[in-house]
């Protein structure tokens, strides 16, 4: 079993991503609203806030998806389908996908 985390920076791709997660039967995926560290810094640390204003940088938000995936090959196939559908995590502004083995899990595993 693996934990897969996707940080989607380009929120325009969310619809496609969610559809693909459902297609892969990853129903227990949780989608969270996220914010880039620069945003948080600009909002909480006065020094960064001033710098942020100087460069006029846009605020960066994201969607973070967390789910468990039974097998590693599902993650590989998922990434391949995402890429085919225009969600290429190797591109700069798409976001990132990471996965790691899950050492301990308690929760539902059934598909239905």
């Amino acid at each position, binding site marked *: 079993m693996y934990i897969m985390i996707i940080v989607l920076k380009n929120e325009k791709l969310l619809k496609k991503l969610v*559809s*693909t997660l*459902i*297609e892969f*039967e990853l*129903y227990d995926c949780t989608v969270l609203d996220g914010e880039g560290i620069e945003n948080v810094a600009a909002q909480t640390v006065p020094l960064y806030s001033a710098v942020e204003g100087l460069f006029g940088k846009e605020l960066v938000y994201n969607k973070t998806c967390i789910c468990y995936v039974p097998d590693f090959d*599902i993650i590989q196939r998922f990434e391949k*389908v995402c890429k085919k559908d225009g969600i290429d995590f190797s591109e700069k502004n798409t976001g990132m996908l990471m996965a790691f083995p899950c050492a301990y899990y308690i929760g539902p595993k059934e*598909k*239905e």
Partner: protein
Amino acid sequence: MVNLLSFINEEHIIIINERKHEAILKKLLDACLMDYPAEKKVEIKRELIGQMKDVNLGKGYCLTHARLDAVDDIHVAIGLMPKKLKYTKGPAVQTIFCILTPHSKSRTYLSFTAHLTRMLSEQGSRKAFSSLDKKQVVAFIKDFEENS
């Protein structure tokens, strides 16, 4: 991932020459429920009156579906029409997917529709479905499943 061929075979693909909504739906439901005894089929159809919902997927495809517990699994029928028809709101359609699903299979159904819509966006889908050739349609789905 669900495999479309687990739910679709040549028997479930029908040619529709009818041009009226009710007659088309009747034919699709007959194909969808072909494995049920006649009495059960009548009972299910009665329950389905007014429940079928149409979703125009664009590009000539339409989905007509309902959730009901009188069926034990997801049942699919595909109607291929020789000419496009104004079947529901939106653009004219030429291929109709009729799907019945029990509530207990809601998640599988979601995956099925997600997978189906991706297949329909593949190159060559329109050509396969408008060919009116059941074998060609099944071959297209098989190719999609093997290579996607």
